[in-house]
């Protein structure tokens, strides 16, 4: 599943980014990876913003990262 489909506070592991054929990372993916979303990283959705249920607030390596719904759809995860 992609990150946006996960439940709040579920422990998740990053598997890959959605466009797997691409070998080179685009700007968004590169920024994601440097914020800690490398493959194998452990994350969880801490909360969703009121009203539209997005953006999402994601905890990764002890940091909080805010991202829009479409940005979260880029990240493939599995629940642990």
């Amino acid at each position, binding site marked *: 599943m992609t990150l946006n489909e996960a439940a709040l506070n579920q422990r998740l592991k990053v598997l*890959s980014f959605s466009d797997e054929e691409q070998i080179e990372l685009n700007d968004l993916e590169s920024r994601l990876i440097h914020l800690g979303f490398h*493959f194998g990283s452990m994350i969880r959705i*801490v909360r969703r913003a009121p009203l539209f249920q997005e*953006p999402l607030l994601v905890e990764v390596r*002890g940091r909080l990262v805010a991202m*829009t719904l479409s940005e979260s759809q880029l990240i493939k995860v599995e629940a642990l």
Partner: protein
Amino acid sequence: MQKIAIVGMPNVGKTALFNRLTGSFQKVANFPGVTVEKKSGWISEHGNKIIEVIDLPGIYSLDATTLDEKVTKDFLMQKEKEPLADLFVLVLDATNLDKSLFLALQLKNLGYPLVIALNLSDEAKKRKFKIDLPKFAGFLGAEVIATSASTGEGIPDLVLRVKERLSTQQKIKIQLPENPQKTFRTAAYVNGIFRDIDLLLKDVVLSPLAPDSFSERIDRYLLSPVMGPIILFAVLLLMFQTLFAWAQPLMDGIEAIFQFLGENAAYYIDHHLLRSFIVDGLINGVGGVIVFLPQILLLFLFIQFLEDLGYLGRAAFLMDSLMRRMGLPGKSMIPLLSSHACAIPGILSTRMIDNRKERLITMLVIPLTTCSARLPVYALLIGAMIPNSSLGFLGLKLQGIVLFGLYFLGFASALIVSLILKKTLPSASPSMLLMELPPYRIPKIRNLATSLLNKAKIFLKKAGGTILVLSLVIWVLVTFPQQENGSSIEHSYAATLGRAMEPVFRPLGFDWRITTALVPTILAREVMVSSLSLVLSVKDGSKGFETDLSKILSHQFQLGTLIALLIWFVFAPQCVSTFAVMKRESGSYKWPVIMVIYTLGMAYFFAWISRILIISF
């Protein structure tokens, strides 16, 4: 002489370390990106310079994109594959180790000769962070010295190790891959390094950083579904109130000072033309620049405070989805709201929007929001058209409803234009929210003061000159040519210009008196009140002057004309200060010119339509 270079990610204390090593006093600040070009100094011994030290701008990785990052990247990745320094002092942040380590492993893998300064060690110790230093050093193949650049702890040790390494080390070749730019960007490469970081950390960290549960607890309130938006609303309301009400006494004070200066100058200068130049041109012009400072400084005090506190990113988080549906990022809410006081601080504050296209859009639509300079004009025209009566049992004032309608019209048109611009302007980079929310911190007064001083300097230096020159041009237009009995606006160049423009504005019902009065309004919209009174020969400043002016307007002009004039002021004209600041902030004349053309176009079109509607009913 042998050379060493200091590298590391932004905001880990490289410059402070450089100052410690070389005994110099480079400016250090508590935010990333202070160093934008490389600087050099020397480590001295008994008054002799023995080692050259180069301080490089911070980078996160060798895959650098921004301009100041490129300085460092070019220094590190020479074509000759021979490093420009004999040794690199890599500065790591002990409180943020996993983030610092990417560059460390990248450099280590490529074979750079390194000595590692584990900086901020004192702070890490406070947060119970403990790591196995010898093991860590073994992993990185380099000596690791725990330092604190702010207290000086560990610095002598660092210098000692550097000297040791330099005396024994031989020339080293760097092993760059075939196409480094491409390689550093592949998912496999980046993931590989992060995997190594995870392994390393698991092995050497004896006791992890105490988690920041404080921020988490505060977020439970500030980001909660009900409380979060309410608190945000209160914060924005406070900002609005600050700009509208609390800036006013300061602005009145500045105006009073310049009026006092003007009156005194007028008293001492006999020659009427010179007097007019000094008083109406120069003193008025300078005053017209300075008067913006209270609002600019108050807004930035507010923004910087929220930023340092850690709330600004959270405000963007709360507003993002709502604003994005209207074509703008969450961060544009603050510029748009503050523009209701004045467009100048609003445009300056668009700097916090990272995406260039979104920043431009926000800047371009800001002039459509109802700034406070429009209020005197609205009051005058509404007074001339709308009876001062209440509406039924609710007790709502009819005039108030119209005023609210004008605010709404301004804001709605700003949103519509931004949607159109979003579709039409090309974008260089994708629109992102993606950002780290920092932990909450108590803002430091020193930091706030530095930032405010900077903002004031930028405004006065870069925009002040343009505003002053243009106000002198306007002074020439309304003062010349000189008549025998002094100057009068009917015979001025402004009136000549007004008469020349009359045919163009006839469809809107504007005659030469209105077009002449419009000329000086490009200085500031509220000038309309005094320039209209000059043209219509109503004595300014007398008792009941504004109601008199309203009455004369309603007698001398048709309703359609007055409505058209009111609508004209919703969209145009833009004051020269807005133009000057937008030129400065967008970096070219292109964008302010586009802004002026499209707002004039809208003003003309909607004024024309509304007059036709009024006439045909």
